[in-house]
């Protein structure tokens, strides 16, 4: 087995990851007109973000309880129309304080 330098690995992974990101951005240069495809791309961000957030957020902290509390507070603040930074700051503070007690 040949030993590769870490830099060789890093360049290979960077190339693969960049290609994944750059191909759609350069190949799709116009508005997609096809209704099904348009609607599909409209829903993609919301589904991806939902799937990435839950249940992963529950294991992001030291305990499920503190994470769940942070999650609920974030949902509440976002529902009340708070800004991105406010939502992030509140949930951050809630988890930090909750973990003092848990």
């Amino acid at each position, binding site marked *: *087995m040949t030993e590769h330098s*870490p*830099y*060789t*690995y*890093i360049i*290979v*992974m*960077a190339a*693969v*990851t*960049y290609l*994944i*990101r*750059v191909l*759609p*951005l*350069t190949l799709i240069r116009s508005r997609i007109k096809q209704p*099904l495809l*348009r*609607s*599909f*791309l*409209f*829903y*993609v*961000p*919301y*589904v*991806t*973000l*939902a*799937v*990435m*957030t*839950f*249940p992963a*957020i529950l294991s*992001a*902290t*030291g305990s499920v309880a503190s*994470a769940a509390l*942070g*999650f609920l507070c*974030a949902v509440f*603040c*976002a*529902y009340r*129309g708070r*800004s*991105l*930074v406010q*939502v*992030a*700051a509140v*949930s951050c*503070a809630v*988890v*930090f304080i909750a973990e*003092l007690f848990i």
Partner: protein
Amino acid sequence: MLSTDLVPSRTACFWQGVRDGLPIAIGYFAVAFTFGIASKPFGLDALQAAFMSFTNMTSAGQFAALGIIGSGGSLVEMALTQLIINLRYCLMSCAVSQHLPDGLPYYHRFLMAYVVTDEIFGVSIRQKLIWPCYIYGMLAVTVPGWTCGTALGVLTGKVLPLRLISALSVALYSMFIAVIVPAAKDSKVLACLIPLAMLVSSAFNLLPVLRDISYGSRIIILTVSLSLAAAYFFPVHEEEEEQ
């Protein structure tokens, strides 16, 4: 929010990107710090780990890479692993392509593609038109946050206080919530689709066989199937997209 019709002033748009990117950068710093510490036992020095972070800008893929480098895996294995874990960026880029200003030159597309990360995608996609200067503002703070966090993690080797990491990790997820919850308020379909997606995602986490599917594949399978179903049964009309 930026105006959707007018070309915004480049400076204002850049600073808006910096403002929106700052919380992401702080979260990245904490996660990257953890990544730096994790990469040390696999024989990476600070420069190598920071170089990996700088060139890849992806967390799950980089953590997976450590195991492959540590075990002396093949370059093909590395490429395939990254492809599977990071293929979700392809979907994200497809979505972003529909938000770019008409006739945007290639060099902007090449540079913007570099920072299609989960968080930057999530935050920027709220805007009907995503201007390059906005993304560059985010890039200017998030890339240093991710890269420096990694280097410092390797160099200090000391774990940040656990509670601090917990709190900052949750902040990254909260940003996703700040994006999807208001959208769910405005659309009945999204109000059903988003909780459903979370529920199915939980099922994939718990059920046998399903839970063996890798992180990257799970996101793609669920995103494609649920979005396609929603698009089929509840096609979106142009005016709804304006929101």
